């Protein structure tokens, strides 16, 4: 006889006990699930304006759903935590980025300008112009700015963590960043958070 069997009285109706246990187990599990607060961990590694959207959209939306959210900003992702956001896009080497005019008559807006990489690379200020056009598109389509989404995250208590190693590596100083940063940590500190979260994304 095992140790567990000794706890059960000999005259117990085993099948009735099993039935009771199954029901109790189900209800306890349902109770636990109802009380569970979902959690999301995001590792944000990109520092261009286009790639700034996914982490901030997912984080702010998850917090609106009542989830616990933590975001770890590392490498170029740290750029998203700067006090002054100077995020740009680079269409160079990105064949998926539509190159469309955000203004003018509809026929003009519908044209996808197929600019060869060599032209993009050789034209001074090309990225500045592309960034300006992207900002215009964002505005005209009613999409939030990165600043707005970041603000929404802060308001909703999304925990923003900065990678200390990247700060050292790129020679930044902590006062270049927003004061709402929850902590200056490393991979060893963020991974246990990621491990316990229901959803973990690398962006």
């Amino acid at each position, binding site marked *: 006889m095992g140790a567990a069997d000794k706890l059960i009285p000999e005259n117990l109706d085993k099948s009735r006990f099993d039935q009771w246990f199954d029901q109790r187990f189900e209800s306890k599990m349902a109770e636990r699930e109802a009380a569970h607060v979902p959690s999301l961990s995001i590792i944000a590694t990109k520092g261009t304006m286009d790639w700034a959207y996914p982490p901030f959209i997912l984080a702010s939306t998850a917090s*609106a759903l009542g989830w616990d959210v933590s975001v770890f900003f590392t490498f170029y992702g740290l750029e998203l935590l700067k006090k002054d956001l100077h995020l740009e896009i680079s269409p160079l080497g990105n064949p998926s980025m539509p190159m469309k005019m955000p203004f003018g008559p509809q026929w003009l807006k519908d044209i996808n300008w197929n600019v060869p990489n060599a032209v993009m690379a050789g034209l001074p200020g090309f990225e500045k112009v592309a960034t300006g056009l992207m900002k215009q598109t964002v505005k005209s389509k009613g999409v939030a700015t990165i600043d707005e989404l970041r603000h929404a995250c802060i308001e909703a208590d999304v925990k923003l963590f900065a990678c200390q190693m990247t700060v050292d590596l790129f020679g930044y100083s902590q006062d270049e960043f927003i004061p709402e940063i929850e902590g200056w940590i490393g991979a060893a500190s963020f991974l246990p958070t990621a491990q316990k979260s229901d959803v973990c994304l690398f962006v």
Partner: protein
Amino acid sequence: MSTNATQSLDTRGMNCPLPILRTKKALSAMSAGETLAVTATDPGSLKDMQAFCKQTGHELISSSTNQGEFEFLIRRA
């Protein structure tokens, strides 16, 4: 727009995820049982608002489409 709602929120012209974020913010400032009428033009809001209410426990009393505009009536949990 429903006239009998406690509060109303206009998210017309806003795109994902702003309508949800603004709705959540408005609901947070209200008391349980009060109702919020939301207007939106984002076609994604039709599904998003359902998912939002399901997840947060607020009651989506009604949702309707009217000439490219969406109207939602939500009761705060």
